[in-house]
C-alpha cells in the first residue's frame, strides 16, 4: 500500500514537473482544440437558428468538455506508451515491482487530476465564448464523467497494446481521436444504436445533466446501469487485449523497440 502511494506520488510529481517545464507544448494542444471549437461554433451559427440553437450549442460545449477528458485519458494510455518506448524508459517502468498495470492506472489518474483544473478553465472559456452558462453540478457530473472515461480507458489500453506489437500505428491513433468527437457530439435520439458504442451514452447523460439541468437521481436507473455495464465491458475487453498484446511483445522482445 505504502509502495503504491509512493508510486502515485512519484508519477504525480513527474507530471507536474513535465507540465511546468513544457508548459507551452501542453498549451498548444488546448489552443488547437479551442480553434476547432470556434470553427464548429461559428460554423453552426451560420446554419442553425431559432429556438433550438441555444440547446445545440450547449450540447457542443458539453461535448468538447468531455472530449478533452477523453483525449487526456486516451493519449495517456496509447501515445504515452509510444513515447516511453521511444525514450527507452518503458522497460524501466516494467521493472517496477508494482507492475505496469498499476503504473499505467496511476499515470492516467495523476494526469486526469492535473488536467481536471485545466479543463474546468477551458469549460469557462467556452461558456464565455458562447455567452451561455451551463450547470456544473459536480455530484451528478463527476460520476458520469468518471464511468464514461473508464470505457475510454479500455480503448486506450487496446490501442496501446496494439502499439506495443505493431509499432507504427501513430496515424491510426490520431484518427481515433476524431472518431471520439463523433461519438461525443452525435445526438443519440437520431441513432439510438450508437449507445452500444463507448462514450456516446455517457455523453448523452452528461448533456441531460449539464444542459437540461437534471440531477443524477432524476436520470432513469436503467440508463445509469447501462452506462456502468457499457464502460465495464469496454474496459475489460480493452485491458484484456492489452495484457495479451503485452505478453506477445514480451515474448518477442519488442517492448523497447520503436
Amino acid at each position: 500500500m505504502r509502495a503504491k502511494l509512493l508510486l502515485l506520488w512519484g508519477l504525480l510529481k513527474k507530471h507536474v514537473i513535465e507540465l511546468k517545464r513544457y508548459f507551452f507544448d501542453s498549451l498548444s494542444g488546448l489552443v488547437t482544440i479551442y480553434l476547432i471549437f470556434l470553427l464548429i461554433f461559428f460554423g453552426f451559427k451560420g446554419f442553425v437558428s431559432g429556438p433550438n440553437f441555444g440547446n445545440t450549442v450547449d450540447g457542443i460545449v458539453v461535448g468538447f468538455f468531455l472530449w478533452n477528458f477523453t483525449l487526456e485519458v486516451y493519449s495517456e494510455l496509447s501515445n504515452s506508451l509510444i513515447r516511453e518506448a521511444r525514450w527507452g524508459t518503458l522497460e524501466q517502468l516494467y521493472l517496477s515491482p508494482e507492475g505496469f498495470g498499476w503504473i499505467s492506472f496511476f499515470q492516467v489518474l495523476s494526469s486526469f487530476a492535473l488536467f481536471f483544473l485545466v479543463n474546468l478553465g477551458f469549460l469557462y472559456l467556452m461558456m464565455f465564448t458562447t455567452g451561455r452558462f451551463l450547470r456544473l453540478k459536480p455530484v451528478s457530473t463527476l460520476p458520469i464523467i468518471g464511468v464514461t472515461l473508464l470505457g475510454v480507458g479500455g480503448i486506450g489500453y487496446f490501442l496501446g497494446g496494439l502499439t506495443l506489437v505493431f509499432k507504427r500505428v501513430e496515424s491510426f491513433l490520431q484518427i481515433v481521436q476524431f472518431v471520439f468527437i463523433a461519438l461525443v457530439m452525435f445526438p443519440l435520439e437520431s441513432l439510438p444504436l450508437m449507445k452500444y458504442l463507448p462514450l456516446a451514452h455517457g455523453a448523452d447523460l452528461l448533456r441531460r445533466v449539464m444542459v437540461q439541468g437534471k440531477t443524477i437521481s432524476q436520470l432513469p436507473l436503467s440508463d445509469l446501469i447501462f452506462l456502468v455495464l457499457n464502460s465495464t465491458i469496454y474496459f475489460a475487453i480493452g485491458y484484456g487485449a492489452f495484457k495479451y498484446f503485452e505478453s506477445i511483445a514480451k515474448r518477442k522482445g519488442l517492448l523497447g523497440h520503436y
Partner: protein
Amino acid sequence: MKRTSAVLEGNRNVYWRLTPRENLEFFASLHGINPAKKREDIRKLLSSLRLEEKTDTPARKLSRGMKQKLALAAALVREPELLLLDEPTLGLDVQASRDMERRVQELAEEGDLTILFSSHDMDVVEEVCDRVIVLQEGEIVVEDRVENLIDLFRAEGYSLVLDDSLEDAARSPLEEEFDLSFNPNQSEERTEIEASLAEPAEVYRLLERIEEAGAQVISLNRKQPDLEEVFLNIVEGGEK
C-alpha cells in the same frame, strides 16, 4: 527477484526532460523507496559518478557519457539485488567509459549485488567480471570463471627466436618430439618457432634439444592469452 535494475543498451533509460535529481527521485519511488529519505544517497550517488555539477540540469542537455552514467545511477538508486548492464560502455568516450568501469567494479567488490554484464568488449569483461557466459546463436557455449577460461587457453604456448637457421635435418627430430610450428617467412639467420607444450617442465627439454642442435636462443616468451583470444578460440572452435 524483487529488486531488479537495468541499464539497457543505448543512451536512453532515463527521462530527458527531468534533471538527474528528479530522475533518481522518480525511479526510487517506482521501486517503493521514499525519495525524501534518499536525498543524501542521491547526492552521493551522483557525485560518485561525477555528475554532481549536473544535478539540476535537464538530462537532455547532458553528454552521451553523462546520460549513461545517470542511467547507472538511476539503476542503483533502486537498491537492486540484480543489476543488468547491457553494453554499458558502448559508444562512450574514454573518460566516461573508465568512470563507468570503475564504478561497476566497485559495486561488484562491495558484494550484495549481482551484476549481469553483457558486452562485446572483452577487455572490460576481463577487468570487471568474475564469471563469463559465452553465447553463440542463442546457445550457451561456455560458462566459467574468467581466470579458469584464461588458464584453459594458457596451454603453455611459447614463442622462441633462435640465432641460426636450423637445417631440415635438425628440425625434424624437434618436430617429432614437440608440437612446434616454424615461421616460414623468417630471415636467413633466424628461426622463429611457436611451441605449445604439454606441461611447463617440457620447456627445459626443448631448450636442451635446441642446444644439442647447435643453435642459440635469442628470446623466449610465454604467451599470455587474454579473454579476447579465449573468446575467439571458443567461438571459432565451437567448443573448448
